[in-house]
């Protein structure tokens, strides 16, 4: 006990000693702080005071003007418009409510906008300028400017705002910009100081976001003198901003507009591609929406309207939409079997209306059967049984290999949001993805583009372009950057004999021109512009044995979302292919009735470079086409605007 007591005494003394030393050191450091304070505030005070006097120079960032996006002819799709706005600084405004009431007496401000501005004002520091109203008319701004003396803290201002003059036509391709959100910031490491500017616009989807780095440009700085009240007196100097780079797309705005208008009433997507260069001339996804709504900040009512629409206007059907290709896939099956030599070029297969495999019956769409069919007959009349036989002989893996060579299952590197790769099923795919063995019956489903096969309209268009040229055509969307052409590589040839390719092309010609062709009604009669195509109808439901016995329910008796998808792929002119197209009409019924007619019309527009003349259509349809054209709301083809639209 004594020892413990003694040790405690010792410990206590040690702590005391160290505590005093520590206290002394702390006091010493405080002395340094005090001396430093004295040095700065007493001895050097005069020089700092001068600096503070001079310190009326403020530096502000100048936002760069965003690169303009043009179509292939130089017509602006996305540009920067002067945006007149009214800005409020809470600190200077005095009684904010009263000041705003005064402003409201001069100019109208939307109630939602006002509420949003007030919220932002409360969130930010009192000296941060907040936009009270934007997109104002010049007269309104003048009104504010004249009354400036009685409106403390209110300043009229002009900025640049993104504008999409072609509205809904390019919503899915170009996308839109919007103010930087906290979510955006959290995704970027070491962010550009520009992003700290309130409401700075950055790309949110589509080309606008994928090419953000090129489009944004670099900030400039402006040194300004402010008076004691903080008001800007004069500009002392500036480092100019570097504007973003201009993008020219391969899209033709007229064709795009026509395609959107032609598909307007459907839930549909259509892609037009130049078969030689791979340039995408149109990528229509209907219905569409006005991207300008998003730039200003869309109201929740409008947004919910778009979201809840069963036709899914926010969804880009051309690259994001995946569909069973149906009979448009049959060229693949035919080519695979003939290339492998398991089916002779003139060999015939008997179609009794179905094929039995493993105790299951696989039906042909024609109940009574087609009789003896060779490849040409089978493509022209879209006989299922011929392709069941062909696929069984060649096997799914060799079929999948050919599909990949034609661009199916490939994610093309385009500056678009949500480009998907689709599915080309094979035994390996099934083992990897599902962990199951391949079932022979699936080969038959795959043969006719059903089952697990999924492709986007973009992929089908690329496939058709490759059939038309026999070359590995790669799609491209950006034609030039800042006036410098984006180089493209010479396409390699496909590993399919040219005899075989011309056989397939001939059969596709017969689909839309032959006496028994499934798309005969959608032919082009202009000499030299003839079209070669293939219809497809893909089921979105299972047909039960009971239903088949009863008679398959007709599409127009089904609810919309249970009807078949209509597909059509085509290229034209047949002799010297120029353009290829792939169209999907969601739940539109058959390919020949729903997808072939608009595809033909869009291809004709591409060939003529304008609304096609009636002579291009079969004589019995001209009357109907005339009314159709009259009812369509089209934009006039524009000529390239002045580049001076950038302020």
């Amino acid at each position: 006990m004594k020892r413990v007591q003694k040790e405690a005494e010792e410990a206590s003394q040690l702590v005391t000693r160290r505590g005093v030393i520590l206290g002394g050191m702390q006091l010493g450091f405080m002395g340094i702080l005090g001396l430093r304070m004295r040095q700065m505030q007493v001895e050097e005070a005069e020089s700092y005071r001068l600096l503070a006097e001079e310190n009326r120079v403020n530096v502000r960032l100048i936002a760069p003007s965003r690169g303009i996006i043009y179509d292939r002819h130089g017509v602006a799709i996305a540009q920067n418009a002067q945006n007149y706005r009214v800005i409020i600084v809470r600190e200077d405004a005095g009684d904010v409510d009263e000041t705003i009431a005064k402003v409201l007496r001069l100019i109208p401000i939307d109630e939602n906008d006002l509420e949003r501005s007030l919220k932002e004002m409360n969130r930010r520091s009192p000296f941060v300028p907040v936009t009270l109203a934007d997109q104002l008319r010049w007269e309104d701004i003048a009104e504010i400017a004249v009354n400036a003396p009685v409106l403390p803290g209110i300043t009229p201002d002009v900025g640049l705002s993104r504008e999409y003059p072609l509205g809904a036509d390019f919503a899915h391709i170009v996308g839109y910009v919007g103010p930087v959100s906290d979510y955006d910031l959290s995704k970027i490491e070491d962010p550009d100081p520009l992003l700290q500017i309130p409401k700075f616009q950055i790309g949110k989807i589509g080309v606008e976001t994928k090419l953000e780095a090129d489009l944004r440009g670099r900030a400039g700085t402006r040194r300004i003198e402010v008076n004691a009240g903080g008001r800007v007196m004069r500009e002392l100097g500036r480092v100019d901003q570097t504007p973003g780079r201009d993008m020219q797309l391969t899209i033709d705005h007229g064709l795009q507009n026509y395609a959107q208008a032609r598909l307007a009433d459907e839930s549909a997507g259509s892609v037009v591609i130049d078969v030689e260069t791979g340039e995408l001339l149109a990528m229509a996804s209907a219905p569409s929406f006005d991207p300008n709504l998003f730039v200003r900040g869309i109201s929740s009512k409008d947004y919910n309207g778009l979201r809840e629409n069963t036709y899914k206007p926010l969804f880009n059907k051309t690259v994001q939409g995946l569909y069973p290709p149906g009979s448009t896939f049959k060229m693949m099956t035919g080519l695979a079997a003939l290339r492998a030599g398991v089916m002779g070029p003139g060999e015939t297969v008997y179609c009794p209306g179905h094929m039995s495999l493993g105790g299951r019956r696989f039906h042909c769409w024609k109940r009574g059967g087609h009789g003896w069919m060779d490849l040409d007959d089978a493509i022209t009349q879209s006989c299922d049984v011929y392709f069941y036989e062909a696929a069984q002989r060649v096997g799914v893996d060799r079929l999948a290999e050919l599909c990949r060579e034609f661009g199916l299952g490939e994610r093309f590197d385009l500056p678009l949001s949500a480009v998907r790769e689709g599915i080309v099923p094979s035994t390996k795919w099934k083992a990897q993805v599902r962990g199951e063995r391949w079932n022979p019956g699936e080969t038959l489903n795959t043969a006719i583009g059903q089952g697990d096969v999924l492709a986007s309209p973009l992929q089908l268009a690329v496939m058709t372009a490759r059939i038309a040229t026999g070359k590995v055509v790669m799609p491209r969307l950006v034609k030039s950057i800042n006036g410098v052409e984006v180089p493209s590589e010479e396409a390699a040839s496909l590993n399919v004999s040219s005899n075989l390719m011309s056989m397939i092309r001939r059969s596709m010609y017969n689909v839309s021109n032959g006496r028994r062709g499934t798309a005969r009604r959608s032919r082009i009669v202009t000499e030299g512009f003839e079209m070669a195509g293939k219809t497809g109808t893909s089921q979105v439901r299972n047909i039960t044995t009971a239903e088949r016995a009863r008679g398959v329910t007709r599409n127009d008796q089904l609810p919309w979302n249970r009807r078949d998808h209509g597909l059509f792929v085509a290229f034209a002119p047949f002799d010297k292919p120029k353009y290829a197209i792939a169209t999907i009409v969601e739940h539109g019924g058959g390919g020949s009735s729903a997808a072939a007619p608009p595809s033909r019309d869009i291809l004709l527009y591409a060939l003529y470079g304008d609304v096609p003349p009636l002579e291009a259509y079969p004589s019995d349809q001209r009357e109907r086409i005339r009314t159709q054209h009259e009812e369509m709301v089209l934009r006039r083809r524009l000529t390239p605007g002045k580049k001076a639209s950038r302020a």
Partner: protein
Amino acid sequence: MSYLEYKVQTVPTGLRKILYVNWALVLLLAAVSSVGFLMLFSVAGGDLSRWAEPQMKRFALGICVMLAIGMAPIWFWRSMAVPAYLFGLVLLIAVELFGEVGMGAQRWIDLKFMRLQPSELMKISLVMVLAAYYDWLSMERVSRPFWVIVPVVLTLIPTALVLKQPDLGTAILLVAGGGIVMFCAGVSWWYFIAVAAGAGALVYTVFASRGTDWQLIKDYQFRRIDTFLDPSTDPLGAGYHITQSKIALGSGGWTGKGFMQGTQSRLNFLPEKHTDFIFTTLAEEFGFIGGFSLLALYGLIIFFCVVSAVQNKDRFGSLVTLGVAATLFLFFAVNMSMVMGLAPVVGVPLPLVSYGGSAMLVLLAAFGLVQSAHIHRPRSR
């Protein structure tokens, strides 16, 4: 070494404890906080409700928490040291997993009524656990290598977690706080000399790593050091804060520009003027007299704590008191050095003055421990 060896009977009990509260310390804390209210009122442009009022409410709550903690006996708090430390660690890990991201760092857990920064709590828990450790450790072992490694590990675990957030300022404070408690407990001088030499070597290595692919700290942290060493290299970027802060401070002169008359603050040349840079507004508006008075108030707090610790025969009590005082010291010393251009900008608030919820509450709670140690100190007959 245990408390119970002393004459417990001489410790005040019941309501009589109120008489033994270190009231001078309470007054000093209130005085410093009042300076804070005044400055928060000023930087809000004469708006009471923006920052000053919530700060006052938190101060009132904090004082109550302090007194409540002070009433509980110090041996109770010693028994709480290890649980508090473990709880702090759990919270730090939780903030890593579920915390909200703000200002580029993941620092707090949202408790709806306030945002809890576990790193604040950890500063105090660490002081407590180290004090309890040395209270338990016998004298001759204090400087033995193994028994020195234990507290070092106890310090480095939370430091590593805080660095990961990343919060360099708090990490530095944790290491310094832990080191100070070890120093007070009597760890041999040689260890501190060795660590100082090691730190010098480490700084050298960090700079040598710059630009190589094994770079040890982030680019923006390097830039902060660069601008600290020479603010003129980037007068409009990161150096801007330091330059403007120095101008504001220096231009205050002997008596300052007057309450709410600081042009630097008014014209928004100052960054974060209600949090980390609040001292510049004080120094600009009240000059050397104002700035030095605040420094003197802090000095008096440290002085009273040291006196209380020196009089206290209980090792845990005096170590906690010194540790808490050191924490306060580190806060204001780093903050003031930063705004005066003596240290790089690391994001440490001015204690009790800067606007901020958990920092003030935690600090006042820590002074509750000081009060408890003061009230329940063993007295000779």
